[in-house]
């Protein structure tokens, strides 16, 4: 059973178009400080790999699991404890 959170809907509602925009938006939402540049790049690369594209619109039907893993990674960052 998964929590009643729809990350795909959040992406859609925020009109995010690329994986970089998703990482930045989630970073702003869940962290008090900006992601380190290298970590940000790794997260974008992770999302690109999981979705097979940088275009969010193309992955809209199957991106929920990848988005959940991205949020898990963000919450695993030390900076998340500053929230």
């Amino acid at each position, binding site marked *: 059973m998964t929590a009643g959170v729809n990350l795909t809907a959040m992406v859609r509602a925020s009109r995010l178009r690329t994986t970089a925009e998703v990482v930045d938006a989630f970073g702003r939402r869940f962290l008090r400080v900006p992601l380190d540049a290298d*970590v940000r790049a790794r997260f974008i690369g992770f999302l690109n790999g999981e979705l097979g594209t940088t275009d969010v619109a193309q992955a809209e039907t199957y991106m929920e699991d990848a988005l959940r893993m991205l949020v898990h990674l963000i919450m695993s960052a030390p900076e998340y*404890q500053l929230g």
Partner: protein
Amino acid sequence: MNECSRRALLKAGLGTSLAGALGMPAFFAQTATALTDEAAASDRILVVLELSGGNDGLNTLVPYGDDAYYRHRPTIGLKPDRLRKIDDRFGWSPGMAGFERLYKDGRLAVVHGCGYDTPSFSHFSSMAYWHTAAPNRGEEYGWVGRLAEGLRPGGAPNFVVNIDTTQSLAVRSRDHTPVVFDDPERFSRKGFSQELPLFQHVAEGSGDNPAQRYLRDIARSARDASALVREAWARYRSPVDYGIVPLDLPKVAALIDAGLPTRLYYAAYRHNAFDTHVHQGDLHARLSPTCRTRWRASCGTSSGSAGAARSC
């Protein structure tokens, strides 16, 4: 634990001013002024096993030669003819054959009757006082943590290890970040396989403020230490039988065997096992032998380590 190490321990853990301020016995004040350099230069290891819940020290090493003991314990006092006497005043409780042997072999020292004036009857306050060795002070750091600061000022990676489900106040330190784990095999970040490579990098970055740098240091320490602990545990083999409930002493032995730079290990009986208010006599009699069995096993395998158990 030899006398010099104990003195250094007491000095670093209690502090000169603290010992005096608390009105502690002269023994503490005197030992507090003893040398720390000797211990700092030594590679000796201290293993602390807390008999969590508050072991009944008077029914562990019984002062049978003191009438006050029987006056105040008409029911649960242990009769002299049941004890394993070590002199004309003290005797081990009947089940502690292992401790008796260690004592007779000169491998066990006891600091009996530790305490402070007007003790708190709150479990929580009492635990905090014992963990900080600072009654009624609101001390922020634990006695083991302060000892680490005395032995290795400024901190050092993996200098203090605390094996438990949560970190004990006893090991909390200003300079040192204790390695805290429960199950070595599960001492790692959990996630889907795709995520695991990224966990190696989440603590990267220099950090823009002290809080970030602190958190990243903690994350790096946990990442690096967890790898060492898992590897040490996977490689450790011992012919020693630690019994049905081995506590955490085989884990300590594994890390020592692997050559970790840890000098202070802290483990505890789980679930406040020694909180023996109900059916005190029988329960305490069962717990004490389990303690000595594991401790003897650990002493037999971890050469170079020294043990200290509160009131035991």
